[in-house]
């Protein structure tokens, strides 16, 4: 759990993912489209990945990945990210982390 929070804090927009997860890929595409420098952490490549998965699920999510943190706070999974974006709430949150190309 600590590792999850440690990896999420102070690093802007962080997404916990799995290399085999196509939905994670979709969310990554969305953030790229928004010009965000996204930090992706693949849990299937982390030796403590299983524990981290469980920790995320304990926060109330049926699937551990994708899990998006912004400024150290958990935003949620795909549902939450999409809903937030459609309501116009995502862009203000990621503004500090946008890379204007």
């Amino acid at each position, binding site marked *: 759990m600590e590792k999850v929070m440690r990896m999420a804090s102070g690093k802007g927009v962080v997404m916990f993912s799995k290399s*085999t*997860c*196509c*939905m994670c*890929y*979709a*969310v990554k*595409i*969305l953030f790229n*489209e*928004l010009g965000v420098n996204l930090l992706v952490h693949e849990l299937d490549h982390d030796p403590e990945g299983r524990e981290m998965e469980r920790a995320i699920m304990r926060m109330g999510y049926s*699937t551990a990945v994708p899990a998006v943190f912004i400024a150290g706070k958990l935003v949620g999974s*795909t*549902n939450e990210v*999409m*809903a937030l*974006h*459609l*309501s*116009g709430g*995502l862009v203000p949150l990621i503004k500090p982390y946008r890379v204007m190309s």
Partner: protein
Amino acid sequence: MSSPSTQFAASRRMGIYEPVHHISMWGETFKGSTSPNTGVSTIVELETRVDNKSEETSHGALEPSKKYDQEANKPPDKVLRRLAQNREAARKSRLRKKAYVQQLESSRLKLTQLEQDLERARHQGVYIGGAYDSSHLGLSETVNSGVATFEMEYGHWIEEQIRQTRELRNALQAHVTDIELRILVEGGMKHYYDLFRMKDTVAKADVFYLMSGMWKTSAERFFLWIGGFRPSELLKVLVHQLEPLSEQQHFEVCNLQQSSQQAEDALSQGMDKLQRTLAETLATDPLGAGSYTSQMTAAMGRLEALVTFVNQADHLREQTMQQMVHILTIRQAARGLLALGDYFQRLRALSSLWAARPREPA
């Protein structure tokens, strides 16, 4: 075997229809088991038979008096022989009838048994038809109970949709109060949420069926995107119907159009990735030593993601609609729902018209 016209001519001459007809029927049915000659000789024999002297017929049909006299003048032993032959023919006819009925009975039992098996399998959600999955079969052939339930519920959903659209139109034309409109708008939104719940259930039963769009009309299928309509398309349909919009509303609607398009693109690319990885999983060196089982297991894992994508697409549709209701006034929202209901009705009508259009004969 003599032709049907011959048999009928014979019966007409005698004035007896039914017995000959019956015998010819058994004869036709058991072409293999009965020699044609028996049939012919039977009919020939009956032609010359004296009606009221036969024990087998139940009809007391009239005989021309000429024939009767002819029969009475024949030597008794010939008459007796003919009577015996008649009895024999009738006995054989009864046996054939019995065999035919037995065949019918056993077929009926078999049919009942098959129906029971089918029903049992249906309840277990088993695919019947071997290699074919239900997305290849026509609507009437699918035996997946989840799909059958969905089809039935969707049919009702459409009926209710038509009713609600009509109600909205009447309400707007009658200039009812905002309070009444709110009730209709909330009802309309709930109706769409019901559809998304139904789709969620059937996605778990058979995601390929949902993705195929077989439950929609043909023109609707043309616009299919991950098992339903595109949120951005929905907005395009609505926007022109909702003028005049305030400046704030314009701004918010534009933002919603942009964000829904971005979300759509992201999901589309995720789906492409899923296709690519599935293809990669299945495409291996046929001469290699790879494990078939592990490959299939991996592919099955990939397919699980498809349900997630369909759910997410529906979530996007729901969110887009909710946001629109949030941005619009209640009257605008009512007009929006009417426009949407009307649009889909026209699309469905187009499908019917297209299917019924006159075509050049091939």
